[in-house]
């Protein structure tokens, strides 16, 4: 039986937080001088004590020809794992064995030189990625064809549009012939057509030529299209390893406890407040509490109110705050005079309005600009998960809070 092509055993990478970033020589000398004289500052010891394990206890095996997806939130350790496997940095503990030629694609166009022509850059980039000159020569026509830059072969790439640049860079990478291909999020470049083409190339590489691929992405659609097996990373460890569909559902479904999307107010038995908020809950379309809402779904906030003494002119105040603590909006909605003592409000936001990310609510009963009757801040944390917005890699780019759809704006261009 053949040995697995990738074997990872207890791999871990630890960063010492105090040492991250550059040290100046002065700092270093100061520290050793203080150590020498015995007068350590409180900071000195802490610096060496703070450890952060970016990945820990990672073990898995990959058989030849498998295509493995790797998913997880930002900071879960996916990229660190790829860096370790691509030998960009050394692990702190553990071992990995790769039985075959490795090419990693953590970025497209690494090492492109703006002054060189497209053709020259193909050779340069190919060599950086591990191809020999003969291999590049053999593949040159294919690469040029894939990138669609035949006419510009002798143009310096500094004159290229960013789209052409990216196409060329991806084309080189796509024609590597390694036994193991490590890809990080590079499909998140170029226009939709090119992304489709790139994805097609990726699955062709894996299915027809039988390469082993490790593929990190935030785009679940891409993962489920080309990977049979997926690893889910969470806080530096592998949380799940199995069929892609199961793992993605696990990731999107109950990644966070549902509990904190529901808020129950602690109401004293005797309250002087005439109107109180009893509870708030973020729910999905069907009314079940959920902390993960897909971006294509409505976001609902159910609020239960006890109204002992209705105050005319009172309003519900709904305020949404994003993860950067920015206020997305504040909306006052008049409360109609209730018939019963218990009432329930439902506030719904249309799908595809908010940028994927996590948000919290602040809910209050107020008389605008006059009086706060009852209110709670930072409750009902929920996350909007991207399932088909046109944003590219929303977890690492700050797209603000609101997605502008076609009907929200106009844009004109004038040729002068």
């Amino acid at each position, binding site marked *: 039986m053949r040995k697995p092509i990738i074997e990872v055993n207890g*791999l871990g990478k630890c960063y010492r937080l105090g040492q991250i970033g550059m*040290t100046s020589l002065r700092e270093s000398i100061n520290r050793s001088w203080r150590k020498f004289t015995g007068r350590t500052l409180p900071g000195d010891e802490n610096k060496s004590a703070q450890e952060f394990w970016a990945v820990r206890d990672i073990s898995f095996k990959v058989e030849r020809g498998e295509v493995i997806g790797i998913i997880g939130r930002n900071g879960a350790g996916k990229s660190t794992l790829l860096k370790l496997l*691509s030998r*960009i*940095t050394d692990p702190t503990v553990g071992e990995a064995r*790769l*039985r075959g*030629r490795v090419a990693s694609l953590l970025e497209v166009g690494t090492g492109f*030189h703006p002054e060189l022509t497209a053709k020259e850059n193909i050779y340069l980039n190919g060599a950086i990625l591990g191809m020999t*000159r003969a291999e590049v020569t053999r593949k040159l026509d294919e690469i040029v064809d894939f990138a669609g830059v035949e006419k510009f072969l002798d143009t310096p790439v500094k004159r290229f549009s960013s789209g052409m640049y990216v196409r060329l860079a991806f084309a080189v990478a796509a024609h590597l012939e390694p036994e193991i291909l490590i890809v990080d999020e590079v499909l998140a470049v170029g226009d939709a057509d090119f992304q489709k083409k790139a994805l097609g190339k990726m699955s062709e590489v894996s299915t027809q030529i039988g390469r082993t691929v490790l593929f990190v992405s935030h785009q679940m659609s891409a993962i489920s299209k080309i990977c049979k097996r997926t690893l889910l990373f969470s806080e530096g460890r592998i949380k799940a390893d199995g069929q892609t569909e199961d793992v993605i559902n696990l990731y999107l479904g109950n990644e966070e406890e549902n509990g904190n999307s529901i808020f129950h107010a602690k109401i004293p038995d005797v309250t002087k407040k005439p109107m109180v908020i009893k509870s708030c809950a973020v729910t999905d379309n069907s009314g079940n509490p959920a902390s993960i809402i897909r971006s294509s779904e409505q976001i609902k906030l159910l609020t239960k109110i006890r109204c002992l003494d209705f105050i005319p002119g009172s309003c519900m105040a709904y305020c949404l705050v994003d993860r950067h603590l920015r206020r997305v909006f504040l909306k006052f909605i008049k409360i109609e005079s209730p018939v019963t003592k218990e009432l329930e409000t439902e506030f719904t936001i249309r799908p595809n309005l908010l940028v994927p990310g996590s948000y919290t609510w602040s809910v209050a009963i107020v008389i605008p600009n006059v009086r706060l009757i009852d209110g709670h801040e930072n409750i009902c944390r929920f996350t909007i998960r991207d399932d088909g917005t046109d944003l590219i890699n929303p977890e690492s780019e700050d797209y603000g809070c609101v997605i502008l759809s076609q009907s929200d704006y106009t844009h004109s261009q004038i040729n002068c």
Partner: protein
Amino acid sequence: MTPQPEIIIRPHRDWWQIDWAEIFRYRDLLLIFVWRDFIAKYKQTILGPAWFVIQPILTTIVFNVIFSRVAKIPTDGLPPTLFYMAGLLTWNYFANVFSANANTFTNQAQVFSKVYFPRLIVPFSITISNLLAFSLQLATFFCFWAWFRFFTPAGDQIVLGWNVLLFPLVIVQTGIAGLGVALIFSALNAKYRDLAFLLSFITQSWMYATPVIYALSRIPENWRWLANLNPLTQPVEATKLLLLGTGTINPLDYAQSVIITLLLFAIGLSMFHRAERTFVDTV
């Protein structure tokens, strides 16, 4: 495709385990880097390659005025222009290799954090591509050499013998010395970024510690051992001896210079290797 040995990734590779076979496998990358440096330099400006010629000529003029006319430092009986140019030839190659490689990690951070290849390829290729500037300067030197040899009365003192064939070896040694020092410096610089400010100061003082503007024969015999601790002293003297026929060389001192050069290179390799393992974590 040739079968590849198994790649084992584990912590703490020791410094002597530099994978030379792997560097050899990446020889195409080395050549392409060298070629890129040539092309990029050539393309950037029209004056690009001309600078390699103009700059040492200007330096020679300045040296002529200051050290020869004003300070009246003797030049071993040779025409000062040739004396300075010969010294600068070898010295400049060393200094260029040193300063071009001294910031390897910081200059290459972008690439190093995205793709793996044996990191030593970069300084190796820069050391080789600096031979372009060197050859242009050598050609310039021989123009001046021919003029002084055949059209000035001082020409008879200038001797060019068969031993000039040893000159390439001197240059190889100079390149290795420059590379060794640069590897040490870049490893330190990867950790202590403020060292970069020292670079031009180090290079400048080092030049004055090397017999470029003066002859080794001007240093009293009992102090020469100190001058010879500088691995560049003998190569620069040798350049003058081989190209002009006058220089203070003795085999023992030269052997010492070679040993110091190799020592610096070994230290540089090990420090560079240590730094490359985790440099990316500190970017």
